[in-house]
């Protein structure tokens, strides 16, 4: 189709990864903190207690600081599909563009319209209208997550479309299949609940710090009570949605699952690795043990993936080289079919242009017979289908490990809060403080798992990233990459400093009531 410059692919990936990772520092907190703020304001409206209004305003102030930089880093994400992935925009824009547009219409306007009321409308609208606005901001933020994750879920598990050889693109055939893609829903629920966990950690960390400093004690205790209750509830939910999400990965993206677990050779009763150190010298087909050290639970992976201790879980080598016993087609066979489809499409277009109906029809038949694996036709080697295994493995295990710790932390804090002993256990308070950076790391690790684990695919099995880029000079992308890196880092420094200053000032100044 066109010459693919490897450095262009790398810079385009790097820029998208950079902007997405920066954006994802801020979004989860917004997703969760909007709900926590709405809950606090609801208590204020129900009780009429001005103290809750002050508490609401304090957390709302921090939300605004975070929200602003979330917008700043977010606008680029949408337009980058055009600027850096223009082939992608054409090849799947017919499907992918729809959820993005719906996100704008249903979510962004709701957020931006009611955000102004939430912050500036305290004396301009009634109490209940203000509360409604706060809830609408929370709902709008989460609706935004829904639609973007429907789009992302579709990239991981494309459904509801067919390839139109005349337009040389994938076209939507079933809107509802795209909307109700099971991959999207597990992803959505897991992602938003992880955002709620992070927001709970955020409130707990700041409140714990106040308790350690023996200041704003009443405020901190009440905030911790709300956050720990909310946090425990949503982290348990997060655990179940994570299980669902992993099962979707097992069904639709077996290579990602194998990479998440460092499973090179498939087996029945596959173990799940709770902790492990990968051997960095491990390569495909070298028959070496992938792990230097590991602690694993026998049958765990089979159970979690397929609800059976004996279920067969394919490994990386099975998927790359095929496994006849388990009817797994090799990547090279898929590549052969894919190349046939790519060639047939070219022949079809040329024959049609020349008015050769017979040849066009014959080429179309060949194309239809092989189009299922067209994406593989653009790959250079079967080994290209393997993502970066160590990065995927460690990211996944970091996410799961930290997530498990958060559940324990919420239980401890909630218990100590209810027995009014929290302030006496300084180590718990310090754990509360230090769990916040762990929460951010877990968030980023989750996205690294999801996005690195599906490489080399922009659209799973359909479109490799190399075919999706814009046809521009890699130097241009390199320039903008560094511009983003510098600008976003500068803004992040400002954000952290402002946030820290506001936290240091504390809730007393949050309102003049």
């Amino acid at each position, binding site marked *: 189709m066109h010459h693919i410059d490897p450095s262009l692919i790398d810079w385009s990936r790097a820029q998208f990864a950079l902007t997405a990772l920066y954006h994802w520092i801020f979004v989860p907190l917004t997703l969760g903190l909007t709900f926590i703020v709405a809950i606090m304001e609801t208590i204020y409206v129900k009780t009429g207690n001005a103290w809750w209004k002050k508490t609401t305003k304090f957390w709302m102030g921090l939300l605004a600081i975070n929200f602003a930089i979330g917008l700043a*880093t977010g606008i680029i994400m949408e337009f980058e599909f055009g600027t850096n992935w*223009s082939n992608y*925009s054409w090849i799947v824009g017919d499907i992918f563009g729809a959820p993005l547009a719906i996100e704008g219409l249903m979510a962004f306007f709701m957020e931006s319209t009611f955000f102004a009321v939430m912050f500036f*409308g305290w004396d301009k609208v009634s109490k209940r209208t203000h509360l409604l606005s706060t809830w609408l901001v929370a709902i709008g933020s989460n609706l935004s997550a829904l639609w973007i994750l429907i789009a992302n879920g579709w990239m991981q598990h494309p459904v509801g479309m067919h390839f139109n050889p005349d337009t*040389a693109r994938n076209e939507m055939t079933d809107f509802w299949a795209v909307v109700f893609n099971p991959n999207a829903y597990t992803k959505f629920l897991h992602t938003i609940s992880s955002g709620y966990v992070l927001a709970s950690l955020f409130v707990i960390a700041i409140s714990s710090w106040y308790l350690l400093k023996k200041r704003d004690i009443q405020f901190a205790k009440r905030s911790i009570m709300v956050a720990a209750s909310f946090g425990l509830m949503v982290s348990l939910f997060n655990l179940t949605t994570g299980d669902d999400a992993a099962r979707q990965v097992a069904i639709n993206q077996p290579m990602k699952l194998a990479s998440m677990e460092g499973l090179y050779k498939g087996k029945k009763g596959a173990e799940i690795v709770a902790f492990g150190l990968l051997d960095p010298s491990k390569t495909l087909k070298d028959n070496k043990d992938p792990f230097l050290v590991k602690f694993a639970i026998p049958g765990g992976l089979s159970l979690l993936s397929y609800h059976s201790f004996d279920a067969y879980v394919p490994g990386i080598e099975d998927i790359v080289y095929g496994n006849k016993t388990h009817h797994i087609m090799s990547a090279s066979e898929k590549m052969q079919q894919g190349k046939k489809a790519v060639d047939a499409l070219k022949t079809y277009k040329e024959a049609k242009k020349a008015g050769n109906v017979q040849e066009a029809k014959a080429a179309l038949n060949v194309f239809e017979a092989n189009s299922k694996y067209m994406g593989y036709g653009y790959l250079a080697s079967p080994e290209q289908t393997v993502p970066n295994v160590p990065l995927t493995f460690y990211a996944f295990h970091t996410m799961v490990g930290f997530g498990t710790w958060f559940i324990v932390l919420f239980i401890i804090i909630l218990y100590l809060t209810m027995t009014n002993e929290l302030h006496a256990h300084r180590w718990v308070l310090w754990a509360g403080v230090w769990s916040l950076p762990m929460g951010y790391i877990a968030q980023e690790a989750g996205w690294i798992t999801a996005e690195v684990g599906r490489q080399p695919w922009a659209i799973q099995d359909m479109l490799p990233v190399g075919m999706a880029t814009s046809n*521009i000079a890699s130097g241009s992308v390199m320039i*903008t990459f560094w511009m983003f890196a510098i600008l976003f880092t500068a803004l992040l420094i400002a954000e952290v400093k402002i946030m820290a200053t506001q936290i240091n000032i504390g809730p007393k100044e949050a309102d003049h009531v």
Partner: protein
Amino acid sequence: MFNALTTLQLQEYWWFLTALLAALFVFMTFVQGGQSLLWTLAKTETQRDIIVNTLGRKWELTFTSLVMFGGALFASFPLFYATSFGGAYYVWMAILFCFIIQAVAYEYRKKPGNVFGEKTYEVFLFINGSLGIILIGTALGTLFTGGHFIVNEMHLSHWTTKTYGLEAVLNFFNVAFGFMLFFLARLSAALYFINAVDDASILSRARTVLKYESWIFLILFLYVAGSILTMNGYTYDPQTMVVSVEPMKFLHNFEAMPAVAGIFAVGVLSLLAGLYMGAYTQSDKGIWPAGVGIVLTVTSLMLILGYNHTAYYPSLSDMQSSLTIENSASSRYTLIAMSYVSILVPVVLGYIILVWRAMNREKITADEVENDPHHY
């Protein structure tokens, strides 16, 4: 309901929605215009706070309109999204950088510990309000004058210049279009301040801006409108889809669509009435006729750009690569599905209007800004 429409009608419907979004965005750029007027209208810190806080309650709507404009284009005309954004790379990136720095500027400007100081964030607002708008206008100008791209038989596009869109600034029409939007944004900002702010000196300076800058805008507008009506346009044969040059294409489009010409005329007159009210009367309502005028004028210009078998994004490198609403649109199925979604548009507009009325019931004063603990 939408199933009954022909594919061309669906494409026209989506072009209309895109046009309307573009028009609403141009109206909402009064926020950017206001940012560019920060140091012109405000001479004290309190006055600067009033201006920033007045705009700060609306800036996200403008921001969202831009994002929505992009989203609608992606969903309905993905080949434009792919070709223009992926080709005129530097121009769009420059625009995006201007909007990234705006997004933090309001919230961070007055916050203690903001690292770079209040002035830096005001400069961010100024850059967004001036360079950001001029660049957007320049990019919109290329819809009339064209871009250097080629679309191949697989509908994949590439740009043919190494400057990736920056060459647009060498075309006087494009730049004049950019500056016209810039002055329009400043004028609508002045009208908005007159409507929303209660501060005598800001209002007095806003009226002075209207008196002088209206003339600059009018000269630019006459040049741009005159150029559009007399320039060569690109037409295509609806049967063969072959693109060819047609002298005075846009004038012919007005002749072929008198209703659109009527909308344009009403829009221009309404805009002029708004400007007159702001500059030469004591009325504070000039923003409304001007706003209606902007929306009608921009919508009508977008319609003559895309309707009546016109290539709305001509290719200067290969005329047959030019984009039309027919060759760049989403599939019929997607357009129908998205048309049902578009039923939500009046609902969204409805709650925006309701909230706008509630928030603008009383004018913004120095007291309100100073006493608001969350002020920007």
